[in-house]
């Protein structure tokens, strides 16, 4: 063993150790003396190591975008529009339907005069976007003409809807001012899932409600005689449909919507449970005058002359929306207009004069609910509803308990191992202990360098790394003993022991790293945290258990000619 070789080894190890220690306890800025006091180190450790939600406390939400609802709405809207377009062009239809079940989405029109199928198709496609052959396939059959949404288009549209939902959720999260949120797609793309992690948030109820708020806003024309007659409402859906005189069906240019003046549960609502007005029904014109996509801004303001807790929402419209709205209100003075939120009429008012770019949603909101609704209106409507499929919250105290338990278990395990190694391998046991401690330091440094998150299973991964690290030492030492017993000299026993054991160590480490990589790539949450720590720990171990331990032996052997070995 050459001295020069030893020097290089020692220098490499010294550099790695110093860098490793600094990475763990040093701050990521120009350090000052204070950083190296006990409390300073504690502080830096906290900011250096990313703790998972299970250790730090916080909320973990997985939501699914119900893209099937989006496709359903799209199909139904296309159907209504197709019916209207056919009628406008002077073609009679006997009926038809929008199919939205079992992954099939199609629009069918039943014609009174089947010979006109081609002309109806032309007329409809001129006005409605059913002509796009990438999305819809057209097929006439008997007196029915059908547009069916292709599978490819279903996928694309659904993917787009969930991307859009992700963006909207992102803007709502930002508006809420949540610190360091993690928002990303979750699982396979076709599963349309979104993962949201919010460190420090313990009760995610409000966030959940805000994210879930679909906030589809529409302004509609309520059918009925103009003011001063009161707005025409019906006590049941059947009554509303009957008023249309169309044999119990709703014609495509009309819609029957529930009307319930919104009365929020406020602090005193428990005293007055009958405040909620009975549900009513109204007939409105289809399509709506404008929808939420024309919204420029929305804000919660106190209702003038209302109770102190009454709030309403003021909104203003974009230029295009304002033009449309202005034209419509100008020609419908004294008629009734309804504000529809998520498919329910929230308030009805008559048009006093032409309105261009602003309006109110009144209806006795609490301050909080008005602000939340305004926030969701500003961020835009979700294209599809979302549902929560996984929700985990961890309070900070629970996390601290887990850290304490994990650290305690690790230390006890480490202590047991150290005592045994020193007892069993005596002098060489020191090698193993040095290697183990270096392993722990470098493993933490590795976690920090890769920006990995330390989770509870991650701590378990650390304990297992201790196990694997000890195994490497045991393999080497047992082999050295074996070679020595068979009559070889001390230096060649050490050399052979390391060389032979190294083959085994490589094989065992690579297999474990391979299986951990699978866990990392395909696993979720906790399993992933476990895999990351284990892989980093094993890579570090190849350095600490083999390279460092061998260097110590080389150093010992270089000092004097050894006749025996403390092993």
């Amino acid at each position: 063993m050459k001295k020069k070789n030893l020097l290089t080894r020692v220098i490499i190890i010294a550099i790695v150790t110093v860098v490793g220690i600094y990475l763990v306890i040093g701050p990521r800025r120009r350090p000052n003396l204070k950083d190296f006091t006990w409390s300073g180190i504690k502080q830096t450790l906290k900011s250096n190591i990313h703790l998972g939600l299970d250790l730090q406390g916080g909320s973990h939400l997985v939501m699914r975008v119900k893209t099937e609802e989006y496709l359903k709405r799209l199909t139904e809207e296309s159907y209504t529009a197709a019916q209207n377009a056919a009628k406008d062009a002077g073609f009679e239809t006997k009926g038809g339907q929008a199919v939205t079940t079992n992954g099939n989405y199609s629009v069918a029109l039943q014609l009174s005069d089947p010979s006109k199928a081609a002309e109806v198709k032309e007329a409809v496609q001129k006005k409605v976007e059913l002509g796009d052959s990438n999305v819809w396939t057209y097929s006439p059959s008997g007196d029915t003409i059908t547009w069916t949404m292709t599978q490819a288009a279903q996928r694309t549209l659904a993917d787009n809807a969930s991307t859009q939902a992700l963006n909207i959720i992102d803007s709502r999260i930002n508006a809420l001012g949540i610190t360091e949120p993690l928002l990303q797609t979750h699982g396979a793309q076709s599963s349309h899932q979104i993962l949201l992690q919010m460190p420090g948030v313990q009760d995610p109820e409000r966030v959940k409600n805000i994210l879930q708020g679909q906030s589809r806003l529409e302004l509609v024309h309520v059918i009925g005689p103009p003011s001063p007659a009161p707005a025409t409402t019906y006590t049941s859906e059947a009554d509303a449909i009957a008023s249309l005189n169309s044999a119990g069906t709703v014609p495509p240019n009309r819609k029957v919507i529930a009307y319930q003046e919104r009365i929020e549960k406020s602090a005193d609502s428990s005293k007055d449970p009958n405040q909620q007005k009975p549900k009513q029904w109204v007939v409105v014109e289809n399509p709506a005058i404008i929808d939420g996509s024309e919204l420029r801004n929305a804000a919660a303001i106190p209702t003038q002359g209302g109770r102190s807790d009454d709030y309403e929402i003021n909104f203003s419209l974009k230029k295009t929306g304002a033009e449309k709205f202005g034209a419509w209100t100008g020609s419908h003075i004294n008629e009734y207009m309804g504000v529809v939120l998520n498919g329910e009429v929230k308030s009805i008012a008559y048009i006093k004069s032409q309105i261009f770019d602003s309006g109110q949603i009144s209806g006795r909101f609490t301050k909080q609910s008005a602000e939340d609704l305004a926030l969701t209106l500003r961020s835009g409507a979700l294209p599809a509803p979302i549902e929560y499929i996984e929700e985990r919250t961890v309070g900070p105290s629970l996390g601290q308990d887990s850290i304490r338990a994990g650290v305690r278990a690790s230390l006890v395990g480490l202590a047991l191992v150290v005592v045994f190694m020193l007892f069993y391998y005596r002098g060489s046991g020191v090698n193993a202990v040095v290697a183990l401690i270096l392993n722990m330091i470098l493993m933490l440094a590795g976690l920090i360098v890769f920006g990995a998150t330390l989770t509870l299973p991650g701590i378990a991964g650390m304990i297992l790394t201790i196990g694997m690290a000890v195994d490497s030492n045991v393999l080497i030492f047992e082999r050295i003993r074996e070679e020595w017993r068979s009559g070889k000299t001390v230096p060649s026993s050490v050399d052979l022991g390391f060389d032979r054991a190294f083959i085994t160590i490589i094989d065992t480490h690579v297999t474990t790293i391979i299986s951990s990589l699978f866990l990392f790539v395909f696993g979720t949450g906790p399993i992933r945290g476990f895999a990351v720590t284990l892989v980093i720990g094993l890579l570090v171990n190849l350095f600490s258990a083999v390279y460092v331990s061998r260097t110590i032996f080389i150093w010992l052997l270089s000092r004097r000619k050894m006749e025996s070995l403390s092993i």
Partner: protein
Amino acid sequence: MFQVLHDINIDWLGNRRWFIGISVLLMLAGLGSAVVRQATGRQAFNLGVDFKGGTVVTTRFKQKPSDDEIRNALTAKGVNDAIVQPVTDRPDTVLIKVPLEGEGQDGRVKVKEALNTFGTEAAPGSELEADQSAAYKIVGTDAVGAIAGAQLRNKAIAVTLAALVGILLYIAVRFEWTYGASAVIAVFHDVLVTLGFFSIFQIEISLNVIAALLTLVGFSVNDTIVVFDRIRENRKLHRRDSLYKITNDSINQTLSRTVITNGLVFLSVLALVLFGGDVLRAFSLALFIGVVFGTYSSIAIASPIMVWWEQRIEAANREMALSFNQPRVMKAAGAAKGAKQGFRDASKPLH
């Protein structure tokens, strides 16, 4: 020099029938438990919310009501079939488990309503002790819907299988197919036996337990590779010895390492069981069983299967060569298989 276990000469392979018999019995016991439970309408495995769906609400009380009182409060609010489970290392804390209900049901909200009968919850952001008027605080929730549960379950199975295939391929490349397959069979055995224990004792299986099962896979393969490595080395050194003898020797030579390493891992895992707290307990238990059987299976399962397999291949090669009655082919087959000729220990017939 302090030394346990050296110069041992145990005929491990000679006892293979016992070993395999015991393993088959253990696997049958586990399988029997799962099948019988399934058939009688109980649960084959005690799946946690991670895989079954449902809500677990971890609640800390100032003055903990009795489990029955909590259960009654839940029933009064329409939460039936809730399980109230005390936390052993924290007497003021309970886990309230609510099974999966219809879509849109929020277990947390309902449990909170029920808990409000005992007083108010501590304000968000403040600890239970800091809030004078509060009676309890929800310190953690896990709610998993049906979709997510199925997803996590499928993923756990897929990941385990994928990891096994990866291991099989690596060992096949580094050693031979027979070695890889034997190692994987041994690992499969360990997983089945551990799952059997979980079924018999109805220990809850959560995501963390799956992580433990995967660690077990790693450890078991680790042990098997140490033995196989030694077999590979010995086959080069002692070309004249039979595979039977080489395998026995290799197991004996690595036995001291096996005992020390696994003893130490066993101690670390024991520390985990004793000091790791409730959250890590099922995880530690899975590892505990896994370490024992991982060690056992490399000696008792992987090695005998590998030896048996190699001897079958060798016998088949010889037979094929003879049936062609062409000495050259026999020679070629012998050359290709190298040191694999004559592994059978004449004194100990395998069949």
